[in-house]
């Protein structure tokens, strides 16, 4: 039996399937990832299908998001980062749409599952290591040695840098997952208060307005969190890629 507050995070098998002993069922999480993709596709293609030199509202929305990502990449990676714009853009817009879609009633928040966010983060982590070694070879290990480190402190600093580097996939995934999960639980808890106060009747029912007002405010906050977390995820991906591409030390 699951607590009612956590029921929204439950995964149901829609089309059960197993391959080679692994459960590869099509679940509600898979469904909402497809819905997210469809939303992104509709937003981009319908916005750009009649592109004009003076953009309309929809087209400028698409262009603004693109310029925002390009600006972020330029600022954090530099000119050599332009090649990664499509990757960062895809990442940003997918997470953004998944976060916002998850806030709709009856929707399933894909990004509130650690395995989803960890899959992204682990891929980015391996990508960064791959790019780092491809571009710099063994010099990539210099990432763990900040310049002007006293020789005495070197073993300590290298260990600290190593821990900091190894925790990257976790920080990246936990941040997004924790924000989304916490927000959704909060909304559900306050919604529960509304219902129980309403059932209590009389003066209690009037008090039910308080959690309702709280939920409206929380919902606005969650919309902000949805955008901010998508931004932070993309930003940190840029920062990590920058470490691999430019070897800042």
């Amino acid at each position, binding site marked *: 039996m699951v607590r009612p507050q956590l029921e929204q995070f439950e995964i149901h098998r829609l089309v059960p399937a197993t391959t080679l002993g692994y459960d590869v069922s099509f679940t509600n999480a898979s469904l909402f990832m497809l819905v997210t993709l469809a939303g992104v596709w509709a937003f981009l293609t319908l916005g750009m299908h009649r*592109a*004009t*030199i003076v953009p309309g509202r929809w087209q400028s929305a698409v262009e603004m998001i693109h310029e925002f990502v390009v600006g972020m990449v330029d600022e954090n990676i530099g000119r050599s980062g332009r090649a990664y714009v499509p990757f960062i853009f895809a990442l940003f817009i997918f997470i953004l749409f998944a976060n916002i879609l998850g806030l709709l009633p009856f929707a399933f928040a894909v990004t509130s599952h650690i395995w989803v966010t960890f899959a992204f983060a682990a891929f980015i982590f391996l990508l960064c290591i791959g790019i780092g070694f491809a571009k710099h070879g063994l010099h990539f290990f210099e990432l763990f040695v900040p310049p002007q480190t006293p020789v005495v402190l070197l073993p*300590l600093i290298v*260990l*600290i*840098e190593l*821990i*900091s580097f*190894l*925790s990257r996939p*976790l*920080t990246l995934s*936990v*941040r997004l997952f*924790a*924000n989304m999960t916490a927000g959704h639980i909060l909304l559900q808890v306050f919604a529960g208060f509304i219902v129980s106060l309403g059932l209590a009747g009389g003066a209690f029912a009037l008090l039910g307005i308080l959690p309702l007002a709280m939920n409206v405010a929380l919902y606005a906050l969650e919309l*902000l*969190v949805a*955008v*901010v*977390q998508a*931004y*932070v995820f993309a*930003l*940190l991906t840029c920062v990590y890629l920058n470490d691999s591409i430019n070897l800042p030390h």
Partner: protein
Amino acid sequence: MSRPRPTDELGSLEARLAAAKARNAPVDPVRLAGGAMGQGFRFAVEIVVTTVVGTAIGWQLDRWLGTKPWLLIVFMLLGVAAGFMSLFRAVAAEQRLVDTQPMPPSVPEDPEE
């Protein structure tokens, strides 16, 4: 017929517009607050996670080397240090940015007051 492409003239106009906008861009408070919140969460999570990862590394090394509980303690502290070091670096970078930015023109005091 292909879609109209922006001409060079328009490109330079756009560049000049962007430069002019950047010169006196008002700071959007919502955007500022959102950015600050994102940054705050970033380092809060980072400190927690590096501590956990450091502890996990120490715990596993202890099991392999049979040095219970010393490496766990050492690596937990290193994890905390790693979290705070990234926070410290970010603050230092921010400070450099503030230091290099020109001061905004000061407003002369109102003599009537």
